[in-house]
């Protein structure tokens, strides 16, 4: 959040009291009003959209501590204005979490941050980890062979990532990748009769496997279930496969690892590689499988059981590759904020209506924020993943006020029993008790929507298909739904490309949302329709 960083840097020696921030996040669904600070989305009222200006001046005109009750486009909210710096400045308000979400949907472009309290930065030392006893007594280790095969025909599955945890809570364990024979040898303590958890992640074509409290043997056989492309996964259940013309006229940019250009289910109309030092026209999947999977969720054009169908197959897909090509020296290269900001610039300049960012982490970054703000001023909306840090606060850039931030929802029964996805089931459960917010999903008041993100089947390079889970998958589901909605609204689609257009797209998306019963901290406005 900008406010957080501004305060932190402008008040030497003072730092936010972190537990107050986290406390606000965790109690955010309580009906009691909280104190929040409202700011124009563009930092100054001069630069804000006209609707935001009018709204801010309405607040300024209210007598001190007035209670505002209003709504338009179907949403209603109440809040109490406690203080105002000046007409163009911040307002301190008291508002419930539910009303805050309604306000955010109604006045897109408004920044809303919790009031924070600061204390002197007194340094003290804490014990961060304890030395483990006898961790190097390798004489007591035993070798365990894990053999991964197809449950359909018993054939070996090479390239599967096998992870065995002796203690899942402390993440102690061993792992490796299966060879051509489908086997991998792990080194585990001889004194442990039961494995806490055994995960197997195939590269593609199969569902992953999770076994809990597994009796150890010298050889463990793990049969994997092949992917059936006609299977109804969470995307197909919550968002439905699109009609061929869903998304027509809408341009979507996928800012990611690049998209598989030769996959029969994908049609990529253009894009750019924005990694410095790599060719600009190299926007294929050189950064990995992730971008192709996201693209398929949005706009795959196949027909089950030979292919898969995305949410808005008529969408014009553009690939902006920001993850570098992997090398032996750097097998897991990272995407820089420069590449990401450049990709956002390029996407907006090339007329993308929506940009999908299934990436993020770390602290707010001014360069990325500026690019997102410039994209908004060009009528383009950025939709970003909340992050997969197991209930931590929404990560950047999703936490930036001008991004649509997306959490991940799953549904029991939409993945095979014993698949890795069964490990993502966690409270809270929705109004329909089969629905849950994935255990990995980050949460917080910055969330705008939720999307299906557990056990998702989609396209990967080499004309293959894979199952992936994450807010990375939930985000393109919401992007696809936004494309479908926008294609059906010619007035917004054909509007002048400015901040007001971007705000109208977001409003269209968020006002279509229906709560699944998790509360705003977990689902924002809910699932778009």
């Amino acid at each position, binding site marked *: 959040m900008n406010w957080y960083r501004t305060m932190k840097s402008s008040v030497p020696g003072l730092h936010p009291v972190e537990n107050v921030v986290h406390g606000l996040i965790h109690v955010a669904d309580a009906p009691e009003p909280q104190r929040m600070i409202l700011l124009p989305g563009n930092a100054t009222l001069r630069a804000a959209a006209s609707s935001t200006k009018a709204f801010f001046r309405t607040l300024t005109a209210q007598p001190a501590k007035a209670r505002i009750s209003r709504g338009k486009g179907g949403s209603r909210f109440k809040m109490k204005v406690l203080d105002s710096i000046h007409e163009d400045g911040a307002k301190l308000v008291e508002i419930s979490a539910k009303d805050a979400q309604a306000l955010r949907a109604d006045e897109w472009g408004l920044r809303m941050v919790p009031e924070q309290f600061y204390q002197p930065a007194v340094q003290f030392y804490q014990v961060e980890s304890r030395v483990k006893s006898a961790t190097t007594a390798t004489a*007591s280790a035993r070798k365990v062979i894990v053999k991964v095969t197809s449950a359909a025909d018993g054939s070996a599955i090479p390239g599967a990532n096998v992870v065995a945890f002796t203690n899942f809570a402390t993440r102690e364990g061993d792992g490796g990748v299966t060879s051509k024979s489908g086997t991998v040898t792990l080194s585990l303590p*001889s004194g442990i009769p039961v494995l806490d958890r055994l995960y197997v992640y195939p590269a593609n074509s199969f569902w992953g496997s999770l076994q809990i409290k597994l009796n150890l043997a010298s050889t463990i056989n793990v049969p994997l279930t092949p992917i059936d492309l006609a299977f109804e996964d969470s995307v197909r259940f919550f968002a439905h496969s699109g009609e061929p013309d869903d998304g027509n006229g809408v341009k979507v940019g996928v800012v990611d690892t690049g998209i598989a250009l030769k996959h029969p289910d994908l049609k990529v109309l253009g894009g750019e590689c924005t990694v410095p030092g790599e060719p600009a026209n190299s926007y294929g999947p050189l950064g990995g499988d992730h971008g192709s999977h996201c693209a398929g969720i949005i706009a795959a054009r196949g027909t089950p059981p030979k292919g898969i169908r995305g949410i808005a197959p008529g969408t014009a897909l553009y690939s902006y590759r920001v993850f570098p090509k992997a090398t032996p020296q750097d097998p897991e290269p990272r995407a820089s904020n420069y590449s990401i900001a450049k990709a956002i610039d390029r996407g907006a300049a090339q007329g993308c209506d929506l940009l999908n960012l299934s990436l993020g982490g770390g602290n707010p970054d001014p360069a990325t924020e500026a690019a997102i703000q410039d994209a908004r001023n060009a009528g383009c909306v950025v939709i970003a993943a909340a992050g997969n840090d197991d209930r931590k606060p929404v990560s950047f850039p999703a936490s930036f006020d001008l991004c649509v931030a997306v959490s991940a929802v799953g549904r029991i029964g939409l993945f095979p029993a014993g698949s890795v996805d069964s490990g993502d089931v966690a409270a809270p459960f929705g109004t329909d008790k089969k629905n849950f917010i994935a255990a990995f999903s980050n949460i917080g008041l910055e969330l705008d929507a939720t999307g299906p993100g557990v056990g998702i089947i989609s396209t990967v390079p080499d004309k293959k298909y894979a199952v992936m889970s*994450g807010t990375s998958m939930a985000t393109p589901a919401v992007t696809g739904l936004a494309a479908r909605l926008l294609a059906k609204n010619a007035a917004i689609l054909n509007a002048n490309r400015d901040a007001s257009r971007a705000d109208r797209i977001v409003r269209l998306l968020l006002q279509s949302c229906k709560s699944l019963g998790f509360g705003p901290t977990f689902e924002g406005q809910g699932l778009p329709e």
Partner: protein
Amino acid sequence: MARFVVRYRGAGDRPREALQRVQSIEGAQVLDDTGRMMLVEAPEHELRSALGTDADWVLSPEVNYPLPDTRKRPASPPSHGS
């Protein structure tokens, strides 16, 4: 030397002198340039001085994001013989 993202947010084209000042920093390298934004390798203090206090410039350190991944990984090898 650290790498920085330098972005011009003012109206119109960026001032030509600013780029010249950045290029004149000893050892500085402009690694990529889109017109509106540059990736620059340079000492931070000198780079900030070259850009001055003009609010039209945004300067931020290069940050690298990992590929999102929900797969579990061991953080440490198992304890043996304890």
